[in-house]
């Protein structure tokens, strides 16, 4: 056998191309998310009762035909409140998370590929931002501007941005040290190209996991703001505030406190099931 033959034999052993598809767990996650997004859109139209309507004489009522998930501490229908609250929990949290990831992520990658002075300035700026107690600043902002959906989204986004910046920067710094980024830099590529083509596609997996995590933070932050009376205004309520306002029923195991919590849990699990099982490049477990 000549050397040339052995080379072709060795090199022929490369893997053929293959398409991977979403595994079952990922499908389940996708179905859960799809369900809740649908509810966020049509919730008010399918809810059996008005959001503030008192339909039960007792607080913390049991399951019955008219009230499938029982009633809350004031005797309002829990199912209706969850369905109507879906758009606040999902809408505000998702919008704030997207905004935070967009700002923090872009600046994080910019800091990583620019290095030097830009990196230093951005990092110190976000360090300063992170050192401000988040709820305090939220209180101040909302007290000054008044509570509206857009103010809530903006405030939560700003609170989540420094964390997103840190995570994205850390991920991007690792990729930035690899030879192919070095090659692109030696070619003369600008920061925009480096971020878009070289760095972003290679941190997509872990970054999505970060998105899932931050989304859950946003849901919880929103609920704590609502608890302080600065979030979604009554009679409307997001899921977090549904849990908070019915917390007295916890000792009795009231459905009014369990069901919103279950709603939050299913949404969180759904998001993370989907993200953890994404195939190919988006996979969070892929090695680099």
């Amino acid at each position: 056998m000549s050397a040339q033959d052995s080379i072709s034999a060795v090199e022929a052993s490369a893997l053929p191309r293959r398409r991977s598809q979403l595994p079952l767990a990922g499908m389940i996650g996708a179905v859960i998310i799809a369900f809740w997004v649908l509810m966020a859109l049509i919730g008010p139209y399918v809810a059996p009762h008005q959001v503030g309507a008192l339909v039960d004489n007792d607080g913390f009522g049991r399951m019955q035909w008219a009230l499938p998930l029982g009633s809350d501490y004031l005797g309002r229908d829990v199912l209706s409140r969850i369905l109507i609250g879906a758009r606040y929990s999902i809408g505000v949290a998702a919008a704030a998370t997207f905004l935070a990831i967009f700002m923090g992520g872009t600046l994080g990658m910019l800091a990583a590929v620019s290095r030097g002075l830009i990196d230093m300035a951005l990092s110190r700026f976000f360090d300063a931002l992170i050192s401000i107690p988040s709820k305090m600043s939220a209180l101040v902002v909302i007290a000054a501007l008044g509570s509206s959906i857009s103010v809530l989204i903006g405030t939560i986004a700003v609170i989540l941005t420094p964390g997103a910046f840190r995570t994205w920067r850390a991920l991007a710094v690792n990729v930035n040290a690899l030879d192919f980024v070095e090659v692109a830099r030696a070619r003369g590529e600008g920061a925009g190209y480096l971020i878009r083509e070289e760095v972003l596609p290679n941190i997509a997996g872990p970054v999505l996991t970060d998105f899932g995590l931050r989304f859950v933070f946003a849901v919880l932050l929103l609920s704590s703001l609502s608890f302080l009376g600065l979030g979604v205004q009554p009679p409307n309520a997001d899921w977090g505030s549904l849990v908070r306002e019915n917390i007295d029923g916890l000792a009795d195991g009231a459905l009014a406190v369990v069901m919103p919590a279950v709603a939050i849990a299913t949404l969180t699990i759904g998001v993370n099931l989907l993200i953890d099982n994404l195939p190919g490049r988006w996979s969070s477990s892929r090695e680099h």
Partner: protein
Amino acid sequence: MAPLVEVDRLRVAARDERGCENVIVKDVSFEVQRGEVVALIGESGSGKTTIALSLMGYARAGVTIAGGSIAFDGRNLLDMSQREISSLRGRDIAYVPQSAAAAFNPARPLLKQVIESSQIHRLMPVAEAEAKAVSLFRELMLPNPEKVGERYPHQVSGGQLQRLLAAMALVTDPSLVIFDEPTTALDVTTQIEVLRAFKKAIKERGTTAVYVTHDLAVVAQIADRIIVLRDGIIREIDATRRILKEPKNDYTKSLLAAAEPQVRTARSEALQETSTPPVLEVKHVTAGYGATDREGIPTLPVIRDVSLSIKHGTTLGVIGESGCGKSTLARVVAGLLPAAQGEVLLNGAPLPRSAAERTRDQLRGIQIVFQMADTALNPARPVSRILGRPLEFYHGLSGDKRRRRVAELLDMVRLPANMVGRFPGELSGGQKQRVNLARALAAEPSLILCDEVTSALDTVVGAAILNLLAELQRELGLAYLFISHDLSTVKAVCDEVMILYAGQMMERGNRSALRERPLHPYSELLISSVPELRQGWLDGISETVLKEATAGVARPGRGAACSFFERCSVRIPGRCDIEPTPLRRLSKGADIRCQRTEEELMELRAR
């Protein structure tokens, strides 16, 4: 007496991501006699490490031993319970892995880790084990054997760490030691001391050993018998002498041939002085990391006062051990690390020091090809995009034109056109390196910086890449700056050679100058440290070389004095370590940086 190890029709299968069975070791049978050193040799993917691990009854995750038997001392390992196997591992069968740095816990002192297996198996009290370890340190020729165990892994050199790893394996007096590529990651000069220590320890203790490697020259020094593997099948088993002298199998022959790269005929006409300026000229460059001081020298200088020039269509080889600054030199030329002092000229025109300040055309002229093809290609982009980008960026090609050019480039590096849609993860190591090269060619550069381009590849695949480089040079008139730690590769492909040590240029000359004496003392050491493909080479190494080889590698210093001083056997204390070292032109046509004159070097060598 019965053999210590008897492997009979061993079959090992791996399951890939899609769940397909893939037999990686196919019905392998061999035996290892007591006191014998058997080498398993083959390229990556030949199954040599898999077989070595199975001798401990171990299979990596996703891999199963599918059939056959492995008898160790008369008992079949594959029938034993996990508990029984655990009691054998580390006590009767020991393993020395390739990467010593990864094998030690950085947070614990060395001695504690070395005696660990004796304590796990409760073989002896701590004091006795420590005394034993110290005697092993002495046997393995470690400096300061009483005290070295108190240190932490980062406080000793790579070669010392590898020997400490051997001490760890030998502390329980195992009947079988498995060495898995223990010197592959080491520099040649370090490899000598480690190989000698291993050989001595094996001989004195009469240890039975299985030595896994891809390097025939190393095996020739240490093994009694060689098993040549390919694709999980034994191609040839024979005594070392017979394998080296009269190989029967074709594959063994090709391995032997690839071990000594063909020397290409010098392009003497290209070397003639011409009026055109050299493609690349580097003048008195100093570079490093950290802030620069008043004299313009960085806090951590990596290369100091290096000058070179490369003529059109020729190759300059830069060799040196790890940490000598050869990759930094490439980065300085590419503008990735701006030089602190000195000048870089491309085709006679000076270049700005930083890549960010160079024009697109200046950047196009110099392309870089990195060692690790795995990290040099963006794993998220298909080959068409990887090759298409420089075409678009430098030449403004798009659409059909770009597609045609990508196909041409693939053809130039001898890859089939259907590779365009593949992602880097779907290519083999050799194919990745070809794509890597094609990307550099896409810019139509006048100079390509090749940073250890074949080091991560198997010998045969690497030889093919070298052939490709030579063909491209002929066709396109490219110039290469060829960086390598492998002297035989450099001698085979380069027209001119430069030897770096601790950031200083030690010798620079025609490639044939490396075969003529006198040489710079460091060149001499480097050349005599490369293992030769004959038995007995290791035992025949001269005392001077040994002394120089075992002294630690110097870090780049700040002054202009010789950095090789500490290790040099012909040094002049009071002069070499204080005065700036002059450049001397030797009669063979090479330049060296040394205090000794040509006559002195000749005379000292003759002694």
